[in-house]
C-alpha cells in the first residue's frame, strides 16, 4: 500500500503533464474536428463528421501529404548515403583524423533555425550565393522543395555521421579480418560484411530521418513560408497555418487527426518493410 502510494507520487508529475498535453489534447483534437468557429473565434458550432470527410478527402490534405512525402524522398536517402560516406571516410587510422571527425559531426551544433538561416544565405532567391542553381531554386514550384531539403540534409548530417561512425566502430575486427583472409577486397568487404552488420543502425536512421522529415517546419517557415504557390506546404506547415486562424481551427484539427493516422501507417510500414531485410542481408 505504502509502496503503491510512493509509486503514484513519483509518477504524478509526468502523468499530469501527459494527461493534459497528450491525452486530453488528443480528445480535444478530435472534438475540435467536429466544430467550426466564426472569424473571431468567439463562437463555435457543431458541423459533424462532414468536416472530417471534407478535409481528409480534400485537395489541401492530399497536397500536403504528397509534399511531405516528396520531402521524405529528397531528404532521407541522400542524407543517409552522405552520412555513411562521411563515416566510412573518417573511420580510419590517420593522423589528424579527429579534426575531420569534429568537422563532420559539427552540424549537430546547429538548430534547424540556424541551419535554415545558413542556407538562406546560400539559396535565397534575391541574393543567395547559389540562387542560380536551378535544381535547388526556391523560386520555382518544382525545385523549392529540394532547396529546403538540402538545408535539412546538411543539418542532419552531423547526427547521421555520429551514429553511423558509432555503428562502424561496433563492427568486430575479427569479422573484417576473416573477410580479408578470405580474399575480400575493401569494396567487397564493405558491401558484403560491413554494410549488413550496419543495417540495424541504418534502419534506426531511416526511421529517425523520416520522422524528422515529417516534422519539418522551421526550414520551411524560414526559407519559403510554404511557397512558391504552396509548393512547399507540408502537412505540418498547413496545420500550423490553419491553426492560427480561428475560422480554420477545426480544419487544422482534422488535419492533425490525419497526421495521426499517417504517422501510425508510416511507422507500421517501416517496421514491416525493413524489419525483415535487416541484418541478414544475404538476399
Amino acid at each position: 500500500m505504502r509502496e503503491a502510494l510512493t509509486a503514484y507520487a513519483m509518477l504524478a508529475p509526468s502523468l499530469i503533464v501527459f494527461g493534459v498535453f497528450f491525452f486530453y489534447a488528443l480528445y480535444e483534437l478530435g472534438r475540435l474536428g467536429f466544430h467550426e468557429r466564426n472569424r473571431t473565434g468567439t463562437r463555435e458550432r457543431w458541423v459533424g463528421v462532414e468536416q472530417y470527410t471534407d478535409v481528409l478527402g480534400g485537395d489541401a490534405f492530399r497536397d500536403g501529404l504528397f509534399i511531405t512525402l516528396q520531402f521524405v524522398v529528397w531528404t532521407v536517402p541522400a542524407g543517409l548515403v552522405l552520412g555513411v560516406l562521411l563515416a566510412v571516410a573518417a573511420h580510419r587510422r590517420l593522423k589528424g583524423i579527429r579534426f575531420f571527425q569534429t568537422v563532420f559531426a559539427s552540424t549537430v551544433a546547429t538548430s534547424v533555425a540556424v541551419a535554415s538561416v545558413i542556407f538562406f544565405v546560400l539559396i535565397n532567391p534575391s541574393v543567395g550565393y547559389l540562387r542560380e542553381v536551378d535544381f535547388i531554386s526556391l523560386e520555382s514550384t518544382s525545385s523549392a522543395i529540394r532547396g529546403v531539403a538540402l538545408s535539412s540534409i546538411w543539418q542532419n548530417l552531423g547526427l547521421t555521421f555520429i551514429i553511423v561512425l558509432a555503428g562502424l566502430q561496433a563492427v568486430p575486427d575479427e569479422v573484417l579480418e576473416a573477410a580479408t583472409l578470405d580474399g575480400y577486397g575493401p569494396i567487397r568487404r564493405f558491401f558484403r560484411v560491413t554494410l549488413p552488420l550496419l543495417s540495424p543502425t541504418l534502419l534506426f536512421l531511416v526511421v529517425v530521418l523520416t520522422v524528422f522529415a515529417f516534422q519539418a517546419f522551421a526550414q520551411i517557415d524560414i526559407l519559403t513560408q510554404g511557397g512558391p504557390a504552396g509548393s512547399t506546404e507540408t502537412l505540418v506547415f498547413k496545420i500550423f497555418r490553419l491553426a492560427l486562424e480561428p475560422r480554420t481551427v477545426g480544419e487544422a484539427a482534422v488535419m492533425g487527426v490525419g497526421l495521426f493516422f499517417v504517422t501510425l501507417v508510416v511507422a507500421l510500414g517501416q517496421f514491416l518493410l525493413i524489419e525483415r531485410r535487416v541484418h541478414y542481408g544475404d538476399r
Partner: protein
Amino acid sequence: MATADTITEVETASKVELGSTPTNERPGRRNRVLRTVGWYALLSVLAFLVLFPVWMTIVRALSASLPYLSAGQPVYPVEPEWDIFSRAWSRGNMGRHLLISAAVTLIIAIAQLVTSVLAAYAFAFLRFPFKRVLFAAFIATLMLPIEVTLVPNIEIIDTLGWKNTIQGLTVPFLATAIGTFLIRQGFLGIPKDLRDAARLDGFGNLQFLWRVAIPVTRPVIASFAVISFLAAWNQYLWPRAITQEEAMSTVQIILRPLAAAAVGEFNIGPAAAIIAALPILILLIVFQRQLVRGLTAGAVKG
C-alpha cells in the same frame, strides 16, 4: 567529434588496419603513401563541402552588404564590418532572446530530469496496481510527434492565458517518456545485491534513489540531460505557435525576421545566426562525450 577516444581504443585493439592490402600482396611504400594522400584528399573535399555553408555565412555576416553584392559575391569578405555582431546583437535584442531561450531550456531540462528520474524509479523498482497500464500510457506518448497535438495544445495554452509566457513555453514539456525509459533502463542495470544491501542498511526508497540509484546511473542521466537540453534549446514550432509577441520570442524564433531584413542589411541575419549558434557549440564541445552517448543510445547495440 567525441568519438575519437573510442576509435583509438578500437584501433589499438585491432591488428589489421582498415583499408590495408590483402595479406598475399606486398604493399609497396609508394602505394601506401599514395593511398594516404588519397584519403586526406577525400577527407578534405568532404570537410570543405560540410563547412562551405558555414564559411559563406561568416563571409556574408562580415561583408558590407551592398559592396559585397556589387563585388559579385566572392568567397571572401568584402569591406569587413567587424561591428556587425554588436549591431546584430542590439538590432535583434539578442541578449533578451538568448536569456529567454536559456530560461526556457533550463526549466525544461531540469524538470524533465526530475520527472523522468522519479517515474523511472517507480517503473524500475516499485510494485503497484495498474503498472502495466500506466507504462503503456507512457509508451503511447512516444508514438505521436507533437505536431499531431499542436492544435489542441495551442487551445489549452490559450485557455490558461499562457500565450507569450514562460509557462506556455515550458509547461507542456516538463515531462518526457524518453527520459523515463532511458533512465529506467539504467536503473534496471543496478545489481540486485546492491539493492538488498541498501535495504539491509535501512535505506528507504528516497534514500536508495538519491544515494545509490542516481550516482550509479550518472552517465545515463548525464547523456539524457544533454540531449534534453539540446532539444529544448532547438525548439521551433511550439514557441513559434504560441508567441505572437516578439518580446517573448526565443532566440530561434527571432532569427527568421532578422534573416528577412532588407537586402542592404543582409548581413544582420547571418550574424544573428552565428550568435545564436555559439553558446550551444561551446556547450557541445564541453559535453561531447555525453552528447554522443545520448545520440547513439538505442542506435547501436553494445
